[in-house]
């Protein structure tokens, strides 16, 4: 099989530093060698390739922007984004694993945790010895997390958690869950270790999407955790939303990876598939689709690069992340659908990656803020009028 050469119609590589390029090339090669050959098997079986975890940790893919003293690479946000892009070129589930561990577990512990929590958890999460998950969404509270039912009550030296979370990536695998719950009516973050009495994390089954990823419920029934397990600097909905903003940033880049995989597959297929005595790439309707794909990928790449540079300068607004996540995932999904059309019947087979990416992107379009919610976030930002209710 041909090595993936990337998609770079606007020579965006010339805007990257030497280490950003090397990080991208390394993860690209890692994905070619370790993800592509096994991913369809896991997608069929509905399992996460756990063999990848130590390899991903060895490469430094967990918490790669956090400080070196916790065993992290301390890379900039553009390099992190490129890593997410390459992982998702393999599979959204693999990127999700790294996203959750980095942006939704290590980031909140780093940002809102006590020194003891940081010193204890961050090195173990960076080395992949421990896996984390993030529990915000509930069965009845998705886009409106402020209404969450899960709550904590004080009882002596403990908090007692009650409630349920749903759609939690890595929930069943996790050694520690960052759980958001109301304490006296205010949302706080809590660390709940696997095995705590009253805490269970059954896997959700029957997914048509993100099959190579574990999705779970988290159930708390009078689950007692020591008081030191609260993330002390969390207060209100803003704290989990800050985490989601980190994750959305990675998703905006990841979607480019999925789109590249689909475009690359469709382009190669169109050039080699012969109908009416010539390659289908010679037909205008096919070319129109391919041009749409490469144009949208190029635009998405530029959005990502600019939000990355802004983030590295501390100038990124969360609404700008919403725009990139909204745009890039939407177009990645359109690209996956077009790629499937170009591949015709072959497009539905798992001999090609496009239908897997398409199914994955249906989840990606909805998680970490639905497409619609991101529309309203940007809408509010430009008009000054919130339109959520």
């Amino acid at each position, binding site marked *: 099989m*041909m*090595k993936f*050469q990337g998609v770079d119609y606007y020579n965006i590589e010339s805007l990257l530093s*030497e*280490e950003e*390029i*090397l*990080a991208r090339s*390394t993860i690209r*090669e*890692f994905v070619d060698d370790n993800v592509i050959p096994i991913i369809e098997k896991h997608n069929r079986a509905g399992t996460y390739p756990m063999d990848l975890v130590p390899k991903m940790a*060895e*490469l*430094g*893919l967990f918490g*790669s922007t956090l400080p*070196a003293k916790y065993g*992290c*690479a*301390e*890379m900039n946000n553009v*390099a992190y984004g490129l*890593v997410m892009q390459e992982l998702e070129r393999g599979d959204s589930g693999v990127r999700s694993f790294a996203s959750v561990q980095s942006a939704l577990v290590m980031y909140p512990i780093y940002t809102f945790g006590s020194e003891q929590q940081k010193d204890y958890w961050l090195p173990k999460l960076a080395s992949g010895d421990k896996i984390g998950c993030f529990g915000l969404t509930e069965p009845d509270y998705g886009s409106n997390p402020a209404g969450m039912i899960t709550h904590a009550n004080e009882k002596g030296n403990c908090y007692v958690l009650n409630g349920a979370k749903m759609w939690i990536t890595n929930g069943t695998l996790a050694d520690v869950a960052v759980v958001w719950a109301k304490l006296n009516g205010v949302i706080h973050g809590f660390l709940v270790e696997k095995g705590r009495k009253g805490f269970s994390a059954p896997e959700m089954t029957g997914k048509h999407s993100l099959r190579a990823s574990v999705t779970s419920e988290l159930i708390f029934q009078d689950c007692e955790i020591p008081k030191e397990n609260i993330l002390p600097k969390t207060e209100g909905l803003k704290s989990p939303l800050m985490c989601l903003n980190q994750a959305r940033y990675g998703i905006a880049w990841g979607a480019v990876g999925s789109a590249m995989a689909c475009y690359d597959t469709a382009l190669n297929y169109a050039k080699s598939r012969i109908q009416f005595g010539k390659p289908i790439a010679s037909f205008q309707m096919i070319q129109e689709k391919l041009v749409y794909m490469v144009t949208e990928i190029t635009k998405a790449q530029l959005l990502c690069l600019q939000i990355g540079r802004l983030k590295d300068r501390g100038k990124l607004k969360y609404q700008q992340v919403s725009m990139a996540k909204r745009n890039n995932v939407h177009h990645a999904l359109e690209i996956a659908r077009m790629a499937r059309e170009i591949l015709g019947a072959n497009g539905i087979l798992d001999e090609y990656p496009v239908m897997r990416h398409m199914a994955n992107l249906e989840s990606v379009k909805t998680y970490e803020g639905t497409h619609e919610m991101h529309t309203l976030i940007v809408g509010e930002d430009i008009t000054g009028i919130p339109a959520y209710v």
Partner: protein
Amino acid sequence: MKIVVCINHVPDTETKVKVGTDGKTIDKAGVNYMLNPYDEFAIEAALQLKEKFGGETLVMSLGGDAHKETLRKALAMGIEKAILLKDDSIRDSYSIAKALAEEIRTLSADCILFGKQSIDYYNEEIPGLVAEFLGLPSVSVVVRININNGKVICEREIEGGHEVVETKIPLVMAAQKGLNEPRYPSLKGIMAAKTKPIEERQAATASSYVEVLTMHKPPPKQPGKIIGTDVNAVPELIRLLREEAKVL
């Protein structure tokens, strides 16, 4: 143990190479470059030797500024220092080997490692030439290295089998695929490489004795011919294989 690895910056194996307008060099426009794949085995061997015996590792390349990208990758994999022997001119293998040898002579290295060949010109000459210039033993196509008290046992690939040879340090070894599984540069390694030095030195001048006169691509592959689709086609197929293709 002091280990020197000589590496090369070569066109990516996926690159479709075009001959340049001068007819004797490749057109570099749009060509991606990479660390010569065989050199990755040499780098990994150096890192493993260092992990086992301690000491220091150094990577060296001769060429223009573009070679820094490849040196940086070696540093990201874990090599400690890099030397770029700056030279933009066109040299033959003899001249490159001479300049490398002049530099290596000053380093008192115990092991000098190469990939068994560069995948650009395929001359497979440089490791042997460097060993010769330095008066050192040389083992090529190495798939296993065992060093004990200065005694070196190497396994080499030969036609249809393996050969075990014995020599001693200092020596030159040229790595073959199968020697090891090269590590990926980790993100931490990539960040660490930013602060590792790439020392630039002028490459020693040396004569070249071989000049490239022209380069040309092999003739394009002829389209296939379908003689027939059943057993009746066999006699004609055999006739064509005999008379046209001349392979029978």
